[in-house]
């Protein structure tokens, strides 16, 4: 896992595709030194990255008879009239024309999507092996592995961890086409070695039981749909594990997060002041760009964990003592950290509707809440002394509360991050 590298072109694609999920933000928009008014400057065009809305490309097809339509039709006719071996090239030419200049791009882009299937259908099968430049840009999809009728494992492109999903409807006329899938609570899962779509799914059995219920999880494991990750520590399984991926490290427990690595962890991101939240995988380096105190808190947490470990407490008590240590420490150094680039640091804060120290029913307790002095970034840290990742509901709730609290203090805190800190 530590040797894992992003497939570079895919990562670039993902960066542009996933921008609205906050990756663009993670990669530098929320500089810790950006002046407050950057926010105002950014919002006018930051909210408006849709070419259709900006008028660069129309969202509707040109009307029949218009010069743009006729131009495209002529291109299509030429493509169909040409000998088979030149059809792909003609389609490419039409598509290339569609890509030239803002004026033609806008007019031909809608027709290009109609041209491409026709051109492909007319071409001999061998022509399909032609370079992809002749076709509309193909966006690699997520890899999915079915786990029975209503469950599947999905690995988003460019990521290593796997998301389990449950089908919530039957799709079009019950055929499964266009079915909706909802994400299950986070389960630590990865794909083993195998052909795409048929890879074994390696999961943490306990987390799977929590996510889909004991009976369903055991049934799934018994049927071979998924494989318990713990098994891999024994005998043949261990050998299989080594063979499954280069380095055989895919199924090993993650190394301490204090080590520099490309390991991803699931974080919560909101780019609209906590109103809507999404989760994504982020590397340690990405996290440090937006929430630089992550390393500091992580160090504190690891130290506290090391101090408590010799006491050999129950896992629950262990977690309590570590949290207590950290809370006392952060309370002690609060003012010092506030002098070092934070507008406000609030350890162990209770929030309800964005109101601090509110213990009404439904309040949220945040381990650490940071309001940065750039007046756009809020970082919420959650210490995890166990192996269970934070629940999605918790991530969403904490981000919402943190966003409300921060924006009541100073208007403009647009980016809210939820960062788990795993002590193990």
């Amino acid at each position, binding site marked *: 896992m530590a040797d894992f590298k992003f497939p570079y072109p895919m990562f670039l694609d993902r960066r542009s595709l996933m921008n609205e999920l906050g990756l663009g933000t993670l990669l530098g928009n929320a500089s810790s030194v950006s002046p407050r008014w950057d926010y105002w400057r950014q919002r006018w065009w930051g909210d408006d990255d849709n070419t259709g809305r900006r008028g660069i490309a129309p969202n509707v097809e040109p009307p029949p008879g218009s010069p743009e339509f006729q131009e495209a039709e002529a291109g299509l006719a030429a493509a169909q009239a040409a000998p088979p071996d030149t059809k792909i090239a003609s389609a490419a030419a039409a598509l290339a024309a569609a890509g030239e200049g803002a004026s033609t791009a806008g007019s031909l882009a809608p027709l290009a999507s109609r041209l491409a299937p026709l051109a492909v259908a007319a071409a001999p099968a061998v022509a399909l092996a032609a370079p992809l430049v002749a076709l509309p840009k193909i966006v690699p999809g997520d890899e999915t592995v079915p786990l029975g009728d209503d469950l599947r494992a999905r690995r988003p492109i460019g990521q290593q961890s796997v998301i389990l999903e449950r089908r919530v409807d039957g799709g079009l006329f019950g055929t499964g086409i266009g079915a909706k899938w909802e994400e299950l609570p986070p389960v630590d899962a990865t794909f083993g070695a195998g052909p795409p779509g048929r890879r074994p799914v390696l999961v943490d059995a306990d987390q799977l039981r929590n996510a889909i219920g004991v009976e369903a999880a055991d049934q799934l494991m018994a049927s071979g749909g998924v494989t318990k990750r713990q098994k891999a520590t024994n005998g043949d399984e261990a050998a299989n594990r080594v063979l499954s991926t280069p380095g055989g490290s895919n199924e090993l427990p993650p190394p301490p997060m204090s080590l520099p690595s490309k390991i991803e962890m699931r974080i919560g991101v909101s780019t609209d002041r906590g109103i809507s939240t999404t989760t994504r995988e982020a590397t340690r380096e990405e996290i440090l760009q937006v929430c630089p105190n992550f390393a500091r808190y992580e160090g504190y947490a690891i130290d506290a964990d090391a101090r408590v470990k010799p006491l050999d407490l129950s896992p629950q008590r262990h977690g309590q003592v570590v949290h207590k240590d950290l809370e006392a420490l952060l309370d002690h150094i609060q003012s010092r950290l506030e002098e070092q680039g934070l507008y*406000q640091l609030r350890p162990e804060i209770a929030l309800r509707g964005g109101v601090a120290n*509110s213990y009404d029913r439904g309040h949220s*307790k945040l381990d650490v809440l940071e309001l940065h002095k750039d007046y756009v970034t809020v970082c919420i840290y959650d210490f995890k002394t166990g192996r269970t990742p934070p629940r999605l509901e918790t991530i969403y709730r904490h981000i919402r509360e943190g966003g409300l609290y921060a924006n009541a203090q100073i208007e403009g805190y647009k980016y809210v991050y939820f960062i788990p800190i795993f002590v193990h």
Partner: protein
Amino acid sequence: MPTGRELKYLLQPLLAKRADLAFVRRTLFIQPFTHYLRGAKFDILRFSTASRATSFAHQLYNGQGVEDMHASKAYRYRLPEGWEEDLDRSSFLLCDEMERNAIPAVEGIVDYIEHQRSSSYFGLPPGLNISDAPHCTFTVALGECSVGDFDSAEQRLSLMMTFLDQYPVASATEEYRYSPYLFWRMAYLTRLLQTDQSRILPLLHDWEAHAVNGMKLTKYWKPTPFPCET
């Protein structure tokens, strides 16, 4: 973490000595109160046996049924670890801190004018203007309403709400009157200021009653007219 009952036990000498103080749940406050609830609130720490007390001055007519703890520079006191080992000493120290520091810090904040004089409890982030801080803007606008300066309050809030575009003023209908979310109450007040200022003072009285009821402190509350009504 001390429970409410344990805190009450620790504060008993102070409560016996000062009839103008009351302790309900985890809040020590001055009674009777009118437009401002002032005192110190003890928070709940999940993992520690101690507790922190923070002074506060809560403008009741903002419709928020929870004490206002936005002031980041308020007076704070942390009960020492191991407080339960010597209850008499812990009680003495706590009562002393409350009487000498926590309560005097907010005792004088009885209305909007006095509130303005206590900058630490105004919720204004250091180095920033009121117009940068929505919560502070709301506090000032409500204060201006309480003294009858509706136009100033309307201008202040209208400007702020243009930036809080997720909470459109036009959408702030009656259903948001008691919204637990600050921004929706701000939008509601702005709408009322823009459309019918004669309903502002009744609204403020209503919000005050709503907040007091929400905190279950009705018997300690003394409803009084606002400065502009006298």
